[in-house]
């Protein structure tokens, strides 16, 4: 029997009355891969991660983490470390108490690695957690997430308040450690450009639905920006999935998906599309399409059409 993927979701939904925070989400996260969970605020990323760790409850679908449902499942949860931006620490905890607690709860805790990271991030071990700056608080989460060595490690916007140097430190340490001890990492982030070299697989959520799901390399190769005289560009991109179009004078720049050829004719030029551009353009074009459909359908009830429509 093939071992189950660390994460396997089938048609998972989370509805609050008529609003769907997650709408029929089906994804597979392969082992020993760094996955990027991308999407705008309110796209459903945090809800998804809470469900993966048994902290929130899906209203439909099938959730599997290491082949089992995570709710109240100690055997699964001990193999998962979820570092969330909103992690609560007891008021009476100093920084070292948080690490001591994490060491007690995570069977693979690497105390030496934790000590190195504490030095890297210059964390004051004796200070009360509630007195830390936002950046230091994020660093506490980063240290726990890395040192826990959990087979499935989930970071939910772990960088809030961290400056560029500290963020780079996090990415460097994560990558070096991952290379040495591969495991499954999920990075939920807005800063797509910063992590685009790190992530191998991308899931893009928008309004609770999966917009993109694929390996980062082929997604990047899949999209291209074509520019040149408007007429030639329009002819070339006809029939493809157009994500974005800009026209100035007689010139056009169009971002399309699914174009494999790069012909050298009619003054067309091709530029690669960064992951961030691809994500932004995909989300925008989906929103425009949804808005257009909503207009065609005529007025719908207020509060409807919010994520629940396809």
């Amino acid at each position, binding site marked *: 029997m093939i071992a189950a993927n660390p994460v396997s979701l089938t048609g998972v939904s989370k509805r609050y009355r008529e609003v769907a925070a997650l709408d029929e989400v089906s994804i597979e996260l392969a082992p020993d891969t760094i996955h990027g969970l991308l999407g705008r605020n309110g796209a459903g990323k945090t809800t998804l991660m*809470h469900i993966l*760790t*048994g*902290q*929130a*409850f899906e209203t439909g679908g099938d959730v599997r983490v290491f082949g089992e449902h995570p709710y*109240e*499942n*100690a*055997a699964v*949860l*001990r193999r*998962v*470390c*979820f570092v*969330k931006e909103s*992690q*609560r*620490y*007891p*008021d*009476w*905890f*100093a920084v070292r*108490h948080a690490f*001591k*607690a*994490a060491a*007690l*709860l*995570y*069977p693979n805790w690497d105390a030496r690695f934790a000590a190195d990271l504490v030095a890297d991030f210059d964390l004051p071990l004796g200070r009360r957690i509630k007195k830390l700056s936002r950046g230091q608080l994020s660093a506490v989460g980063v240290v726990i997430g890395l040192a826990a060595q*959990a087979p499935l490690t989930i970071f939910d916007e772990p960088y809030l308040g961290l400056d560029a140097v500290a963020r780079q430190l996090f990415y460097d340490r994560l990558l070096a450690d991952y290379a040495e001890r591969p495991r499954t990492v999920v990075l939920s982030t807005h800063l797509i450009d910063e992590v685009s070299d790190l992530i191998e697989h991308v899931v893009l959520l928008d309004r609770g639905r999966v917009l993109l799901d694929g390996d980062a390399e082929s997604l990047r190769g899949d999209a291209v920006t074509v520019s040149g005289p408007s007429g030639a560009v329009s002819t070339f991109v006809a029939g493809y999935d157009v994500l974005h179009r800009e026209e100035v004078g007689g010139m056009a720049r169009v971002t399309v998906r699914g174009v494999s050829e790069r012909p050298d004719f009619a003054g067309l030029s091709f530029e690669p599309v960064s992951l961030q551009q691809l994500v932004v353009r995909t989300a925008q074009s989906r929103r425009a399409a949804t808005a257009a459909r909503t207009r065609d359908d005529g007025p719908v009830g207020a509060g409807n059409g919010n994520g629940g429509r396809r």
Partner: protein
Amino acid sequence: MNQVPAVIRVLFVNARITLGMPLGILFLVWFFNWALFATLADAVPPAGRTTGGLMAIYFVFGSGYLQTMTQAFPFALGMGVTRRAFYTAVALLVAVESAGFGVLLGLLNLLERATGGWGLRLRFFAIDFVLAGDPLRQWLVYAVPFVAVAFLGVFVGVVFKRWGSTGLWTVGTTTGVLLGGLAVLATWGQWWPAVGDWFAAQSVPALLAGYPLVLALLLGAGGWLAIRRATP
């Protein structure tokens, strides 16, 4: 994997605060009562040198467990602890700590009587209201109320985590309406003397250990039902 032992140790990582706080408060309250009566000297006749300061440690104990649920519980859940393991650890801790504090108060009771009320005929631990006779009953009378206040704190904390402030208001108003309704009913039926007689007829162990134990069990069971779908 059984997470319960690890959770108990997590709840004790800062034992200086979690254990030291109730003991420190108890000492301070006792000390200020002692100092007060030492200063007042003979202004208060010996029979009046009784104080209810002992209540403080029960209050601190209960509010400690309230914070355990509002702060340590979300932390633990975020660290992959199951609700079941957390609640079991808390229940065990309540039992052990209550038993320990019961012994401590029993010993202080003996010490108070042996020292002639700390040299001042002060009655802080051995107040009439709680005297139960033999050591076992005395221990129960001291220990069981700890269990009850702890589970009251746990229950309120769980209701807050599960239903937020709406839940607290609902539980608070429901309790208020129920008690108020009973009071109105008792007044209307002129049952107050009977109620008084009933309380007077109860032994100290029944009043301070028996009924509180029932209350603790009800609150503990209610807390368990509510925590199963609680979120951090």
